[in-house]
């Protein structure tokens, strides 16, 4: 190792290269973080919105399709696609 650092200018060069590489790493990290879509990661359920949609009957149509009618054709909104 000693043979590589005979002069101060060797340390200077190595320092410059290392600093540049560090900056490159930081730049790329910042770049990748910037490009992440907003709102990615953990999501929370908006309870208020869910409540509103439930009360307005917006979701009830979907739920009914999960259950099988006793009488053929009753409430059968989607053809042959259970649970959708």
């Amino acid at each position, binding site marked *: 190792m000693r043979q*590589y650092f005979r002069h101060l200018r060797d340390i200077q060069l190595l320092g410059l290269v290392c*600093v540049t590489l560090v900056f490159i790493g930081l730049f790329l990290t910042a770049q990748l973080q910037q490009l992440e879509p907003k709102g990615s990661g953990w999501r929370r359920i908006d309870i208020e919105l869910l409540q509103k949609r439930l009360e307005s009957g917006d979701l009830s149509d979907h739920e009914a399709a999960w259950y099988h009618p006793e009488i053929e054709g009753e409430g059968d909104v989607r053809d042959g696609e259970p649970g*959708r």
Partner: protein
Amino acid sequence: MPANRFLVFGVVLILGAYSQIVQAILIRESLVVFYGNEVSLGIFFGSWLFWVAAGSLVALRLARLPAFSRPLPWLRRLLLLLPLLLLLQILALRLVRLVLDVSSSEFVPLGELFVSLFLINTPSALVLGFAFPLACRSFQQLSNTGKSDSVTGNVSRLYVADALGALFGGVLFTFVLIQWLGLTGSLGTVTLMLSAIAWLFGEKRRKGRLAVWITGLIGLALILPQSGQWLERQLEAMRFSTLQPSLELVDSLDTRYGHLALARLGGQTSIVLDGQITESFPLPLEIEQQAAYLLSQANDARRMLLFGNYASGLVEELLRYPVEQIDLVVEDRRAYERVYPNLPEAGRNALADPRVALHFSDGRRFVNRLETGRTFDLVLVLNASPASAYSNRYFTREFYGQIAAHMNRRGVLCTRVSSASNYLGKTVGGFSGSVYHTLKSLLPEIAIVPGDDHVYCATRAPGRITEDPGELERRYLKISLDEHRFPAMAFHSMLPAADIRYVRKRFAETESEINTDRHPITYYLNMVLWGRFSASEFADWMEQLRQQGLWPYLLPPILFVLLWLMRGTLEEAARPVIRRRAASLSITMLGFIAMAAQLVILFSYQAHVGFMFERVALINGLFMTGLAFGAGIGGLLARTLRPAPALMGVMVLTAGAFAAAPQLLTLLSTSTDLQEPGYLAGSLVLGLLTGMGFPLGVSVTQQEQSGVVRSSGINQLADNLGGAAGGLITGTLMVPILGVDWSCYLLSLFALMSLLPLLFALAAPERLIGLNRRGRSAFPWPGLGWASTFMVLWVYGGVLLQQGTEPAPQTRFDDKHLARISDSAEFELREQPFDYYLGSGGSPEGETASVASIAGAPDVRGYAGAINLLLSVDGAGILRGARYVDSNETPSYITGIDGWLAGLRGIDLSAQSLTLQRIDGLSGATVTSRAALEAINQSVAAVGKAAFDKNFGVQGDPPDIPGFWLSARFIATALLLLAFFPVYLSGSEPGRLALQFASLVLLGVWLNSLVTEVDLVNISLGHLSSLSENPQRWLLLGFVLISALLFGQVWCGYLCPFGALQEFISRIGRRLGLRTYPGRQLDTRLRFIKFLLLALLLIGVWSTGDTSLAMFNPMQHAFGSRWQGWMLGIIGVVLIGALFYFRFWCRYLCPFGAFLALSNKLALLNRFAPRRRFEHCDLGVKEEFDIDCIRCSRCLTGRDTHKKSR
């Protein structure tokens, strides 16, 4: 006892035995913890051999140290350390699910499985790998002959000892230890063995003797029943608590198929096989329903065949029906005898019923041995799950074929597979669909019971089975029963017509393959399914590999061999060195093939015979014995023949054996009696073939007698590294994805490919090897350089393969998306002349036509290729909406595209198209904006004509590029590039500086048009704007590439604007007395960094698809005034660095410069260039094809160079 050669031989023998025992114990532990999934085998062997190789490498490095001049004491210490390490590894494996936080009933994600096994294998494997070279050194010291040919003999003898020890260990473990002593007893026995042999070394120091005694006592304690069994119970409880924490463990045992536990929760008892619940009892209602359904389908069944399921109570329920005989096949008698006392009384009575015939046999073997003419009315396979190769055997075409042969004309086969109750996605549908399609290929009539588990009842006879719940109800009520307990109305809820229709529709739409013994696709799909459930990206990657066929496996060895040959041709290496390298490569390949062969045998054995859990040590031991015999034959060949040609002969023989292997396996599968002996013999023969190569390779690679450790270490390293790769790739990828047959063919091809380096080493003409003028390396670590080249080419090959299997761009959309952009309510798909949707209802403005721009305007290109937008127009030519779907444009340039497109809603396109004069483009993305608008114009025109027979937009609008071929941009660039030639050929320094200045101003400041890594990446991925769209870019790219081919790195030296900027700053630095030169060695090494950056950049972008990883070069930002954030820091450091070091960025860090530097090796018209004066070069360039000459041409005058101040 003083050490002697025989003692060392004995040590190696014991270590060989120990190695087999440890592997068997850890494999069995892995299978239980990872739910019996045999993919853990490949990961196990791969990681085991990797660490053994690492241990050998450490031994090689340490061999030179004085502390290792006497290796015997170190061997003794290792012997005493090994049992403790094994105990820790067992504990680690038993706790791994806890550490990884994997719930019960969940599979460990494949990536985590890999990492955990990889780490857990480290201690024992590392130590064992370390021990072999030490033993070789001891043996050689004690031999003391001083002759070089004794090196080969000694290493070979110890190799034989190791292999014989493995056989001994395999037999001992399989037939004695695990059968009679259990796990802790086995552990105790090996501990005693190792301490005994350590004692034989005659340690003089008290501390050493004490260690031996303590280890021996621990071994004894583990063997004694009281202590050993107590420990075993504690270990079992620990493991079970991580597998099924909510259940109370009642009993457990190891069967030949796996680990079985009996557990309780409240009033219910469950059988847990390899961590998964297979049966629970009592479940009276479920069993009632099951029996009622099955016997309503096969309503006059009198003779039944039932596989497993003896504990659930199904037998008891079936006996209520008018059956004559139930043949019940139970795989393991010991397991049955342990479970039987825990069954309810009624269940025990049912099993003792005279109508029930118990057969203790493997299910496949039982069916194979059934006499011809023996037939059944109903066959039930309800307990298996294709989650492992072992249980996948009950879902293959071969098995169904055998069953079908023993079913009468109206016979019914019923089986069950897990699925999903509400939605069958591609993966779940493919998985359960593969069972469905496999069954259907032999028994075309199938009734489906949908739900979380699908039940399929299949027969040949039309009308025999039904999905009509009413019909089933009638059949059930007609059966003569004491009591019809099952409420037959429940058939209606079991068989909802809509659900069944949906399942059939999905099976018809989903691609499914037939599951066979040699291509266990269902087992593979189960792994993918669990990968998806655990959000493992590994599953997506496996699916991509499957779609790419054989190429992912062929590409790496082809590339490797080609680069190897290139290196041999270009580098200055003596023929003996090349021969040694070729021999090491052959040993590596033999190691790969050996391990791969072992895994092929293990998988095939498991698929046909089934109890690999019991026999793994024996199979491995036999393989190692084959290796020993083979090594003996190889040693003889090494002494009597020329080793290199003999090694080639072994490779050819190996290739032939693998090519013939599938046919031999077919032969084995036809005879039950021959199967097991056949597999064991096959293991021996394959070991023999691959063992022959080792001593031949040693003979070629040995240097001199003092290199015994090095020689043995190198060869063991090569062998084990090859084995690690072979185990990992074959066990986790090749066999599950390609199947056994194609894996064998590939291995045969690999053996043939490894002949090429040997042939080259032996027979290449001298002048070919001497073709090194261009190949002379100018920087250190050529191995790293070639390895980087291999990685880059491999990843690029993978990208090309992936592009070949990418799905077509999206042109079809669901109603929800169409409604959002068009406001229509109903849509009709039309496919001519391209896919588009006619929308109606919803909005009072009338019909709409919606289309993907890739369909309506396929030729429009953005900056990096086609752009796909979904857009909708009405009959009046009003744009109802546009949405971004997909493109390859740089993400940062198009983050606002959705908002921008939303702003186009309502624009009238009936008379006039969209242009950038009319609409503001996306900020900083003119080319993309222009392309998007053109895509909209052309798509609207096309769909307007197709849907409404109207001509929207002004046809033949001139593009708003102002006469592109005559633009100032293009002309200025062309003139600049033309000026290069006279300047370069004249060698004029003022001319070069003037050209650089012109480039700095023109290409840099004015046009901001540089050629960078982003262009390199775009070209590699085929993402280019069209020639008419951006001709100046094409001119620049073309010039850079062609000039590099002809003259080398002249772009950097003459025209790169950022290079010019740095050069001017460097010259200012020299005038200010700041310029300095580093030491030559440091300078040479630092210049290599740019090549590594290039390799990392390309690998990063290609493997992630994210081009922003290529955007760290300051020259991409310097002239665009994007001096902000960390880029400001980079630009600042680079420009300051240029003051002190000539062209700091170019010389040490520029990846694009590194790419162009490769052209210095070509420089086809170099002879016409000005003659460089290397004696004036201050940058260390010494010869014509030096890779690091940036063609600055300062050496021609020597005025700016300064060689004195170093």
